[in-house]
């Protein structure tokens, strides 16, 4: 199951990276952490662009680097794709030539998926242009297509959307998720935007000061009370639910998951669609009694797993709802009134939900 096994120790004048990682072979792994935590350096190590004092890197059965054995594949020998923060398109080549640069050097040299990718990324009309004539969002889409043109076995993306404004981000984000599913390609994705993180990640790696704080399923890392994510004001959790009905009259989507049913205002989606929902901790309130049945839809039975006191007057509670994990942020006073303790059964009322995908 493990696809990427990596260990690096890199000492620079003012920074030290000491990271050990094992990542799954499917889906998107998001690496997050405050700026200067060593995310980019870690990715560059994986790509072979840095030369750590101690290095071990292996993708599936293929060894890339083992400093103990004095073995190191150069970057250009590693079957990876890399999308840089600022696209790094070759300014003397057109979009088509930029993409062909990778295609010509790919394994098969006839990358059939590439036409699909170009279509998906909506860059067909840009092919004849030079990079200087592209907008930021267009550049990044081309950079993604170029990285995919070499038919990588692992795609590395270093804040590919950081240089873009919100509108452009929303323009690209859906493509990314879609692409990953179409191509069945494992992706490592750096971001410090909670938006991108919750929308894209299957697996989450949290870094701080050159070290890896946590690595695991998105949900478990998000809701782990010992980690800064759950302690922040904007703490949130995600859960996956399936569409089972649509109330056209109220434009309400009816969803179900292991913890119960949810209704979310949304346009109609086909039955059986799997949706990822993000729920902010502050949008969840707790009560001891089952609420009146009218509203019972977004009121779910839950069990208290843990509590932490991250900010003055507030308490963050982690809950188990069915097989999923949920965070709730309540005032200390409410907590005291409820006499919350670990293992206690409560009702979690979800006041607001965002559908991510």
């Amino acid at each position, binding site marked *: 199951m493990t696809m990427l096994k990596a260990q690096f120790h890199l000492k620079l004048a003012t920074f030290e990276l000491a990271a050990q990682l094992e990542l799954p072979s499917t889906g998107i792994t998001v690496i997050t952490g405050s700026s200067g935590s060593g995310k980019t350096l870690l990715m560059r190590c994986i790509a072979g662009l840095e030369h750590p004092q101690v290095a071990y890197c292996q993708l599936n059965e293929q060894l890339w680097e083992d400093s103990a054995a004095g073995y190191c594949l150069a970057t*250009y020998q590693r079957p990876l794709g890399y999308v840089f923060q600022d696209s790094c398109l070759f300014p003397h080549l057109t979009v088509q030539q930029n993409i062909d*640069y990778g295609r010509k050097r*790919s394994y098969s040299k006839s990358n059939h998926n590439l036409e699909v990718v170009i279509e998906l990324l909506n860059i067909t009309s840009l092919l004849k242009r030079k990079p200087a004539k592209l907008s930021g969002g267009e550049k990044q889409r081309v950079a993604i297509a170029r990285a995919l043109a070499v038919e990588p076995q692992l795609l590395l993306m270093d804040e590919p959307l950081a240089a873009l404004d919100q509108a452009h981000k929303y323009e690209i984000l859906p493509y990314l998720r879609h692409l990953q599913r179409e191509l069945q390609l494992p992706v490592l994705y750096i971001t410090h935007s909670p938006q991108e993180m919750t929308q894209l990640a299957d697996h989450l790696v949290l870094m701080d000061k050159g070290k890896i704080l946590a690595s695991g399923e998105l949900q478990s890392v998000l809701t782990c009370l010992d980690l800064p994510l759950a302690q922040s004001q904007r703490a949130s959790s995600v859960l996956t639910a399936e569409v089972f009905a649509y109330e056209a009259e109220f434009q309400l989507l009816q969803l179900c998951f292991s913890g119960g049913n949810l209704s979310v205002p949304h346009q109609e989606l086909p039955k059986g669609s799997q949706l990822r929902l993000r729920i902010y901790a502050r949008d969840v309130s707790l009560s001891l009694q089952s609420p009146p049945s009218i509203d019972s839809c977004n009121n779910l039975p839950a069990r208290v797993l843990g509590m932490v006191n991250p900010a003055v007057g507030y308490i963050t509670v982690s809950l188990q709802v069915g097989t999923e994990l949920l965070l709730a942020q309540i005032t200390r006073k409410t907590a005291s009134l409820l006499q919350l303790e670990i293992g206690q059964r409560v009702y979690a009322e979800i006041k607001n939900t965002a559908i991510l995908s």
Partner: protein
Amino acid sequence: MILSSEDWIAIALTLKLASLTTLVLLLIATPLAWHLAHTERWWKAPLNALVALPLVLPPTVLGFYLLVVLGPKGWVGQLMQQFGLNTLPFSFSGLLVASVLYSLPFVVQPIQAVFSNFDKRLLEAAMTLRASPLDAFFTIILPLSKHGFLTAIVLGFAHTVGEFGVVLMIGGNITGETRVISVQLYNHVEAMNYQAAHSLAALLVLFSFSVLLGLYYLNRGK
């Protein structure tokens, strides 16, 4: 324009010397310039100074030292003799070696300047697109450093054509072997052959002017 057959021989020789010098210099200067543009090691400054030395040394002085070092009593000359090679002074090869040294800064510096400004991330991007370093050099660095290379070629070539002091010192004024345009011109002047000198000088001035004018337009179109 009255050019004697000796003048034409000198012109042909000069063009051959300048072309070969430029070619050799490109091969030497490119890696050297890349290293100088990117190394942060202690030898960067001394190496830079060494490369620029021909700019400040009077050519005849450089020529004299080359005569000493390359001659049968100099260490390079002795080394060459041990390997059964002829010493370099008074030969075309000697002239080539001297010109390469003398024109070195004119080729290294423009290339170094353009390399220093080269965005290394583009190189990294090429590496992640499965381009080997050599591949990346020819497909990314070279096309993006075009102007630096053209400037270097033009300056290296033109400077070799105009080279005089060094050639005078180690050439030995041999027709068809070491007597280049500048020496021929000097001979005319010294022999008070002003008519012949004027023709050759006019040609040299015309050539240099066109080359520098071309370079100017080239850089303006950047």
